[in-house]
C-alpha cells in the first residue's frame, strides 16, 4: 500500500540510533518535500497525497510541521477518495483554526455535504467534528440538523451528523438553532438502528441539560428503550451485544440521559424502577463469561444505574440495594471496582435513606486505607470516611485518619489535615478531645496545617471556658518536646498568653518556667511568630507581675530594640514603654482577655471547599499589611495610645497584630471591592444613593456564601429575591459575592430594549476552569422576554474579571426573573451558583409628564376593577419623602409634582414598553406617618402589569 510505503521511507527515523541522526534525516526529508511543493512542475494528485502523508507522519513522530497545509486543502477537492481522505486527515490532525485556510476548507466541506455521496458526506462531517471551531459552527450549524432529520439520509450519515452537531453545540451552543428538528431528533430514540440510537442519545443528553423542557418527551422514550434492552436475551441485539452484555454503551447513555431529569411521573417511573431492579438483579447472577470485558461492561451499566438511583434519591429500597451492591465491590479483587465503589458510596453517604447503610462498611473502608497499594484508591477511602462520619463514629474515624496521616502521601496530606480538623470540631462532644486532636495534627503534619486550622483552634478555646485550662496545660506539655513545629509555638504562645495563669499554680508550670519555655523557641521562629510571642510577653506582664522585670530585660535587649525588622522593633519599643509607664489598671484593661469570637462558620470548611486555594493566604497578607500600616501610621507614643484604649476591641487588636484576624472574620471588603472598582467608580447618581444600606445588605448574602457554593442550586435560590428587590430601582451594583466569585452588574434600558453587562470576578489566585454561566428562563418567561448572549471564555484566571453582555428585549409583560446559573471547577471541586437576574418589568418604563387635569382624567378612565391593584403595607425603611421620591424616579416612572391635592402623597406616570404593546401606568403612593404604613395604588390598562408593578414597588419602601 502506498501510504505504508511512504511511511517506511521516513520510518528509519523511528529506529535511528541517536536523536541527532533522526533529526538530520527528518530535516533532509522535509527539505525534499518542500522543494517538491515549490517546484515548477505541478504535482499530480498522487504525489501530492504521498508528500502530505509523509508530512503527517513526521508530525506524528513529534516534529513541528509548518507547511503543506495548502497542498492538503487542495487534496480536499480531489474526486479520488484516497486523496480526499488524506487531505481531511491532515486537516483534522494539524489545523487548529487558521482563519484563512478555514474558509477554503469550509468550501470543500460544503461541496462534499451537498454531494449526496454518503462516503464523502461522512468525511466532511468528521472533519467538522474534528476541527470543531467556531467558524465551522457558523458555517454548518444550520445545515447539519437538516441532514440529521431528513428522511432519506443513510443511517451511517445520521450517526455522524448527530455527533457532529453535538460537537458544534459543545463549542458554540449559541450558534445551534433549536427548532422543529428537536422533536424529530427525540424520536430517533425509537430508531431501528442501534447505532443511530446511540449517537442520538449522546446528542439529546447534552441538549437536554441546557434545554430540559424542549426534550422532556425523551424521558419516556428512553425508559422504554432501556427496558427493551435490559430484558432482551443476550443474543437478541446481535453485534450490539458486547461480551454477553446487551448494548452496554447505549444503556449507559440512556441512564445518563435520565439523570438530566427528576424522577418521571408514576406510570413511567414504575417501568424505570423495574429496569433498575433488573440491572441490580443481574449483578447477583453468576457471570456469563470469565472475561474481564464481560464484568466491566456489566458493571459499567450497574454503576450508571446506581448513579441514577442516587440522583433520584427517592426510592429507599433501591438506595439500600445499591449500597449493599457497592459494599460487595469494596472487597472485590479488582482494584478498579474497589475504587469506583468507594467513589459512589461517597455520594450515597449523603442521602438520608442510605447513610446508615453506608456506615456499616466502616471497617472495610478503614482497612482499605491501611492496605490499598494505590494512592488514588486510598484517597477515595479518605473521602468516603469523611462522608460517612457522624457523631457515632467520629472518634474512630478521626483516630484512623490521624494514623494514616503519619504515612500518607505528601500530595494528599493537606486535605487530610483539613478533613480531620473539620470532623474533630464538628463532632466534638468533649472539647479536650478536640484540642488533643488538633495538637496531634500539628505534631504529625505541622507543615500541612494551614493557618485556618490553628486560628480555628484558638477561636474555639477562647469561646469555651470549660476547655481553656486543659488547653493551656496540653500546649505547655507539648511545647516541652525538644523540637516542635512552629505552628505549635504559635498556638502555644497565643493560648499561654491568654490562659497561662490557669496553670501557673502548679510549680512545674510557674510563670517563669512558662516564659522561659516559650522564649527558648523564640530564636528559631520566623518573624510573624516572633511578633506573636512578643505580644504574649506583654500579656505575661499583665498576668504575672512577678516576672515583669525578666520580660522587660528581654524587650530591652539589643536584639529586640534594634531588630532589623520594623514590625518586631516597633513591638518591642511599644511594649516596653507600655510595661514601664502604664499602671496595673491600665495594663489590665488593655491586655484584658480576648472577647469571644462571634459564632461563624468554620473557616476550615471554606478552605476545604476551596481545596488548596492559596487565596486565603494572600488575603491574610493583605490584612496584615493594612494592620501594620495602621500601626506605623500612628505617630503618638504608646502610652497615649494605651490610655485612649478603654474599649475592649482595640485590646483585641493588640494581640491580633501581625498574625491577623481569623481569615474569614469578614469578607475582606478591600480586596473584593477592588475587583469591580472600575465598574462602579462612576459618580453615584441619585438612584444609587437610594440604597443607603446597600453595603450592609450585601454582607448578608456573603455570610451565606459558603452555603451558596454548594452543589444544590435550590439552596442558592434562597435570599435571591431580596437581592432582586435591591435592583428594582437601580441598574448597577454587586449582584452576588462569595469567597471565590463576585458578580457585578451594569445595565441600561431604553424602551423595550436593554443591555446588561455582567462582570465575573475571580477573587482567588487560582484559575476557574470550565466556567460556564447560563441564563435560564422558564418557557413562559422565554416567550415574554428575549435574552441573547455569547458564551464567555471557560477559564478565568486568578484575580481576573470577565465580562458578558446580555441583550434584552421585552416582548410582552412578565413576572418571573431569569436565573443566572454559573458552574465552574475550582481546585478540583465543582461549584454551582444560581442567582436571579434582576430584570424586572419596570425596567422598560418610560416616564411621562402630565398636568394634574390630564392625570385625573386618565385615572378615571382606568376605573375598571381589573385595572386597579392596591396594596397597603407597613414601611420597612424610614419614611423619608426625599428617598421615596428618588425611588419612584429610580423605578422608572415620572414623578408628578403638584398633582395630588395632598402634598404628602406621591403620584407617578409612565409607559411600559414591550414589543407587542405599550401599557400606560399611573401610580399613587399615600404614606401614613403615624401608622408607619403606605397605601400604593396602581392603575394600568393591563391587569397583570398593575399586579406586577405593585408587587415590585411595594417592596421598596
Amino acid at each position, binding site marked *: *500500500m*502506498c501510504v505504508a510505503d511512504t511511511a517506511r521511507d521516513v520510518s528509519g527515523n523511528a529506529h535511528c540510533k541517536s536523536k541527532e541522526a533522526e533529526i538530520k534525516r527528518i530535516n533532509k526529508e522535509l527539505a525534499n518535500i518542500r522543494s517538491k511543493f515549490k517546484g515548477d512542475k505541478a504535482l499530480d494528485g498522487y504525489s501530492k497525497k504521498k508528500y502530505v502523508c509523509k508530512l503527517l507522519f513526521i508530525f506524528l513522530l513529534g516534529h513541528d510541521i509548518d507547511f503543506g497545509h495548502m497542498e492538503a486543502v487542495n487534496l480536499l477537492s480531489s474526486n*479520488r477518495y484516497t486523496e480526499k481522505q488524506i487531505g481531511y486527515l491532515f486537516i483534522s490532525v494539524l489545523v487548529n483554526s487558521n482563519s484563512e485556510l478555514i474558509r477554503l476548507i469550509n468550501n470543500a466541506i460544503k461541496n462534499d455535504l451537498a454531494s449526496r455521496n454518503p462516503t464523502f458526506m461522512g468525511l466532511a462531517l*468528521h472533519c467538522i467534528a474534528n476541527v470543531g471551531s467556531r467558524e465551522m459552527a457558523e458555517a454548518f450549524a444550520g445545515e447539519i440538523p437538516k441532514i440529521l432529520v431528513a428522511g432519506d439520509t443513510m443511517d451511517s450519515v445520521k450517526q455522524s451528523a448527530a455527533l457532529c452537531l453535538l460537537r458544534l453545540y459543545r463549542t458554540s451552543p449559541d450558534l445551534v438553532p433549536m427548532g422543529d428538528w428537536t422533536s424529530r431528533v427525540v424520536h430517533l430514540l425509537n430508531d431501528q438502528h442501534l447505532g443511530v440510537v*446511540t449517537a442520538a442519545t449522546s446528542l439529546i443528553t447534552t441538549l437536554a441539560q441546557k434545554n430540559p423542557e424542549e426534550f422532556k418527551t425523551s424521558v419516556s422514550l428512553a425508559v422504554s428503550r432501556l427496558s427493551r434492552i435490559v430484558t432482551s436475551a443476550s443474543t437478541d441485539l446481535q453485534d450490539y451485544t458486547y461480551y454477553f452484555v446487551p448494548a452496554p454503551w447505549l444503556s*449507559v447513555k440512556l441512564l445518563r440521559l435520565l439523570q438530566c431529569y427528576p424522577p418521571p411521573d408514576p406510570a413511567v417511573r414504575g417501568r424505570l424502577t423495574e429496569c433498575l431492579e433488573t440491572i441490580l438483579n443481574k449483578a447477583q447472577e453468576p457471570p456469563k463469561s470469565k472475561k474481564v470485558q464481560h464484568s466491566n461492561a456489566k458493571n*459499567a451499566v450497574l454503576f450508571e444505574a446506581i448513579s441514577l438511583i442516587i440522583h433520584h434519591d427517592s426510592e429507599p429500597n433501591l438506595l439500600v440495594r445499591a449500597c449493599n451492591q457497592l459494599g460487595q465491590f469494596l472487597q472485590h479483587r479488582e482494584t*478498579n471496582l*474497589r475504587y469506583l465503589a468507594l467513589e459512589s458510596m461517597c455520594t450515597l453517604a449523603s442521602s438520608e435513606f442510605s447513610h446508615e447503610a453506608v456506615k456499616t462498611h466502616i471497617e472495610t473502608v478503614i482497612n482499605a486505607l491501611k492496605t490499598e497499594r494505590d494512592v488514588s484508591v486510598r484517597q477515595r477511602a479518605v473521602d468516603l470516611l469523611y462522608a460517612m462520619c457522624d457523631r457515632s463514629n467520629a472518634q474512630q474515624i478521626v483516630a484512623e485518619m490521624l494514623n494514616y496521616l503519619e504515612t500518607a502521601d505528601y500530595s494528599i496530606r493537606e486535605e487530610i489535615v483539613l478533613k480531620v480538623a473539620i470532623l474533630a470540631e464538628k463532632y466534638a462532644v468533649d472539647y479536650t478531645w478536640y484540642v488533643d486532636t488538633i495538637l496531634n495534627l500539628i505534631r504529625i503534619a505541622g507543615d500541612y496545617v494551614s493557618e485556618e486550622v490553628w486560628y480555628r483552634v484558638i477561636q474555639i478555646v477562647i469561646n469555651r471556658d470549660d476547655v481553656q485550662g486543659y488547653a493551656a496545660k496540653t500546649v505547655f506539655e507539648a511545647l516541652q518536646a525538644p523540637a516542635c513545629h512552629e505552628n505549635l509555638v504559635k498556638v502555644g504562645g497565643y493560648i499561654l498568653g491568654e490562659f497561662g495563669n490557669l496553670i501557673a499554680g502548679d510549680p512545674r508550670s510557674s510563670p517563669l518556667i512558662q516564659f522561659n519555655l516559650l522564649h527558648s523557641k523564640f530564636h528559631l521562629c520566623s518573624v510573624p511568630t516572633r511578633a506573636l510571642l512578643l505580644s504574649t510577653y506583654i500579656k505575661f506582664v499583665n498576668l504575672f507581675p512577678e516576672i515583669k522585670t525578666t520580660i522587660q530585660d528581654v524587650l530591652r535587649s539589643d536584639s529586640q530594640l534594634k531588630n532589623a525588622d520594623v514590625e518586631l522593633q516597633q513591638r518591642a519599643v511599644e511594649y516596653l514603654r507600655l510595661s514601664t509607664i502604664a499602671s496595673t489598671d491600665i495594663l489590665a484593661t488593655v491586655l484584658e482577655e480576648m472577647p469571644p469570637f462571634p459564632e461563624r462558620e468554620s473557616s476550615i470548611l471554606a478552605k476545604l471547599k476551596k481545596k488548596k486555594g492559596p487565596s486565603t493566604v494572600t488575603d491574610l497578607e493583605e490584612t496584615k499589611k493594612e494592620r501594620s500600616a495602621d500601626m506605623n501610621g500612628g505617630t503618638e507614643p504608646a502610652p497615649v495610645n494605651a490610655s485612649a484604649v478603654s474599649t475592649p476591641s482595640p485590646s483585641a487588636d493588640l494581640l491580633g497584630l501581625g498574625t491577623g484576624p481569623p481569615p474569614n472574620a469578614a469578607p475582606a471588603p478591600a480586596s473584593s471591592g477592588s475587583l469591580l472598582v472600575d465598574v462602579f467608580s462612576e459618580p453615584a447618581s441619585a438612584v444609587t444613593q437610594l440604597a443607603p444600606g446597600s453595603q450592609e445588605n450585601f454582607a448578608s448574602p456573603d455570610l451565606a456564601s459558603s452555603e451558596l457554593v454548594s452543589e444544590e442550586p435550590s439552596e442558592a435560590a434562597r435570599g435571591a429575591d431580596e437581592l432582586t428587590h435591591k435592583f428594582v430601582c437601580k441598574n448597577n451594583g454587586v449582584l452576588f459575592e462569595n469567597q471565590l466569585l463576585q458578580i457585578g452588574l451594569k445595565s441600561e434600558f431604553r424602551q423595550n430594549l436593554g443591555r446588561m453587562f455582567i462582570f465575573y470576578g475571580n477573587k482567588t489566585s487560582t484559575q476557574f476552569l470550565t466556567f460556564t454561566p447560563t441564563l435560564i428562563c422558564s418557557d413562559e418567561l422565554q416567550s415574554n422576554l428575549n435574552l441573547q448572549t455569547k458564551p464567555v471564555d471557560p477559564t478565568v484566571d486568578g484575580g481576573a474579571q470577565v465580562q458578558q453582555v446580555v441583550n434584552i428585549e421585552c416582548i410582552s409583560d412578565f413576572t418571573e426573573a431569569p436565573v443566572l446559573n454559573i458552574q465552574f471547577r475550582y481546585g478540583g471541586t465543582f461549584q454551582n451558583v444560581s442567582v436571579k437576574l434582576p430584570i424586572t418589568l419596570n425596567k422598560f418604563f418610560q416616564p411621562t409628564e402630565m398636568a394634574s387635569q390630564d392625570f385625573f382624567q386618565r385615572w378615571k378612565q382606568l376605573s375598571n376593577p381589573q385595572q386597579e391593584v392596591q396594596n397597603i403595607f407597613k414601611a420597612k425603611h424610614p419614611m423619608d419623602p426625599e428617598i421615596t421620591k428618588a425611588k419612584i424616579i429610580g423605578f422608572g416612572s415620572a414623578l408628578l409634582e403638584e398633582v395630588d391635592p395632598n402634598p404628602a402623597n406621591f403620584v407617578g406616570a409612565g409607559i411600559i414598553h414591550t414589543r407587542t404593546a405599550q401599557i400606560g401606568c399611573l401610580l399613587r403612593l399615600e404614606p401614613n406617618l403615624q401608622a408607619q404604613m403606605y397605601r400604593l395604588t396602581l392603575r394600568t390598562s393591563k391587569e397583570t402589569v398593575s399586579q406586577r408593578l405593585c408587587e415590585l414597588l411595594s417592596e421598596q419602601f
Partner: protein
Amino acid sequence: MRFMLLFSRQGKLRLQKWYLAMSDKERKKMVRELMQVVLARKPKMCSFLEWRDLKVVYKRYASLYFCCAIEGQDNELITLELIHRYVELLDKYFGSVCELDIIFNFEKAYFILDEFLMGGDVQDTSKKSVLKAIEQADLLQEDGKERNVQ
C-alpha cells in the same frame, strides 16, 4: 471524552486525538505530563486516576498504553471497554495488531478511530458496522489506485 493518546512504554507518542480546541503548546505540555504520570504507575494499580480537572482511564496492551481523558460525570468502566473495543477493531483489521502496525499504518488507525468515535462520543459500537465502513473505504482506495496505475 476530551482526548485519547496512544504511547509506548518508552514514552513515544503513537497516536493522539483531541476533542477539544487547544494550542499546540498546551497539548504538548499535557501529553508530557500525563505520560509521566501514567508510565510511573505500577501494574495492578487501578486504571483510573484524577488528573487536573479530568479523569484519566488507561490500559496497557503489550508495549502500548491507551489513555483516555474523560469528564467528571463520564463512566470509567465503559471507557475502559471503549479502549478495548478499539483494540479489537485494530486487531481485526490488521490481524493481531502490534505497535509497528500502528506506526506504519497510522492513517488506518486514525480512520478506524474516526469510524468508531466522533467528537469524543461513540458513533457505533458494532464491530461489524465499523469494519464494514473501513473495508468500503479500502475498496474505494483500491479503485483509486487502479485508476492511478492506468
